[in-house]
């Protein structure tokens, strides 16, 4: 075991005890294996607390879905399955690269380790980019948590006052600028260590915008259609209240922000309807106290708002976990460039890997539970 001897040579003996131990072995541990096993037990216990923490949100989901399955079916139409599936694939791939980087650290392939960690960070950034597209699109439509919900099926795309996507992108733009500045600085000063760190990190920061692009391409293809279908099929009660079929066509035209003529005409018709009041009784309509057979409109603030509260809570906390994971991965990447890891000391890579797989595990359940409800 040449690594042990090499490591033992640079062992620090400045804390006054007579036995030699490698620099990576804390002196309250007898062997690297004992050190590794202690850390492993600790990270498993931490993951248990994470599971229990997420179970609270899964419980809220389960209760609400048990009581109001129709709300979930209605609201799930607004989640873009394509984007969710792509994100699942990206996250699974990042899990693969993470597991692979654990392997690299165990067999001391340092270049491979740096590459695999960088790939994992890139995937995490792409995931966040796609998520940013999903979130900003829903915020513009007013599909927000219960208190803020303002979605109006008659006008699904109101002229937005704020460009949410820009505000989400802003911190990542600053990040990208900072990392690129670091890269240029390290190029100028010819500091190879900083260069080796800054290169993969600037690629990773740029990957956020790859995710944005990917999300935009998929979103423009599918979601408009999806939400139109939902708006026409699921919200029939509300729309048929507005009027007949050519009004729906008109409303689609009005959805286009540029078409101000159609928009004003639609507004006029809606006002007319409003003044006519909700007491319009058509021929053949059965009016009685029993309103059991009415197909309920689930897209109200009180009902859909609760679904979107759960949606944002679960995916948002998951996204925060991704952000924290990126932080740990950057730390690992810098240590990997420093060549800290060897077959006796790969604990940190393994522990962060376990955390990363747990985040993946939670997404594996979130994706079908939120996106794939009929």
């Amino acid at each position, binding site marked *: *075991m040449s690594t042990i001897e090499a490591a033992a040579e640079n062992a620090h003996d400045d804390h006054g005890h007579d036995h030699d131990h490698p620099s990576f072995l804390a002196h309250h541990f007898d062997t*690297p*294996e004992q050190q590794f096993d202690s850390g*492993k*037990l600790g990270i*498993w216990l931490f*993951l*248990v607390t994470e*599971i*229990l923490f997420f*179970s609270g949100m*899964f*419980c809220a989901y*389960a209760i*609400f879905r*048990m*009581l*109001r399955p129709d709300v979930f079916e209605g609201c799930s139409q607004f989640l873009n*399955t394509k984007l969710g*599936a792509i994100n*699942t694939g990206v996250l*699974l791939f990042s*899990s*693969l690269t993470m*597991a*692979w980087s*654990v*392997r690299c650290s*165990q*067999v*001391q392939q340092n270049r491979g380790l740096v590459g695999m960690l960088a790939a994992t960070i890139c995937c995490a950034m792409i995931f966040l980019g796609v998520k940013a597209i999903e979130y900003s699109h829903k915020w513009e439509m007013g599909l927000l948590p219960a208190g803020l919900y303002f979605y109006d099926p008659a006008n699904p795309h109101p002229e937005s006052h704020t460009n949410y996507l820009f505000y989400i992108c802003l911190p990542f733009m600053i990040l990208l600028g900072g990392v690129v500045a670091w890269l240029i600085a390290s190029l100028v000063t010819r500091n190879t260590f900083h260069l080796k760190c800054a290169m993969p990190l600037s690629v990773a920061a740029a990957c956020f915008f790859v995710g944005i692009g990917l999300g935009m391409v998929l979103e423009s293809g599918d979601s408009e259609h999806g939400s139109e279908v939902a708006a026409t099929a699921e919200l029939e*009660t*509300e729309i*048929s*209240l507005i009027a007949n079929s050519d009004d729906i066509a008109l409303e689609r035209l009005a959805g286009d922000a540029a078409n101000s003529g159609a928009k004003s005409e639609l507004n006029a018709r809606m006002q007319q309807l409003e003044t006519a009041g*909700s*007491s319009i009784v*058509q021929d053949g*309509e059965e009016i009685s106290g029993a*309103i*059991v057979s*009415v197909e*309920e409109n689930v897209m*109200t603030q009180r*009902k859909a708002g*609760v679904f979107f509260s759960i949606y944002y809570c679960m995916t948002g906390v998951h996204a925060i976990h991704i952000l924290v994971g990126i932080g740990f991965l950057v730390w690992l990447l810098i240590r990997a460039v420093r060549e800290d890891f060897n*077959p*006796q000391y*790969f604990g940190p890579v*393994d522990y962060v*890997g*376990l955390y990363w*797989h747990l985040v993946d*595990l939670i997404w*594996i*359940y979130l994706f*079908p*539970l939120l996106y*794939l409800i*009929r």
Partner: protein
Amino acid sequence: MSAHGESKDGYDFAHPIPVPMLLSVFFALVFLTIVTVAQASFDIGSLDILVVMVIATIKAALVMAFFMHMAYDKPFNVIIFLSSFGFVALFLIFTMSDSAQTSPAFEPVVEEVMETDQESTNVIAEESSATSE
């Protein structure tokens, strides 16, 4: 260095997972994701949630066993981690059964509009406007 049978003074304990195994687990996961997405387009009624959860659990088991090295980990760690799912099950079962027996819904349901007076006035307005279409 990947010989992991004899632990020599606690210095040889790394267990690298072979690359082909990692890749095959990854492709199995991708395949199962495609299956989950595909099944959403078939109507299988109330079995839906069951099928989805079974597929997700198979995926979770694959991730845990191979990506998280659980198949090669110490049994004590495995017991600790898996026991958390037992507690989650207890939590869900008790809360849901309680909720099913006590609260009819978060929202006042339509049939109860007459009984629940105060809170559901805007629901009444909403429903009456819906009936009058």
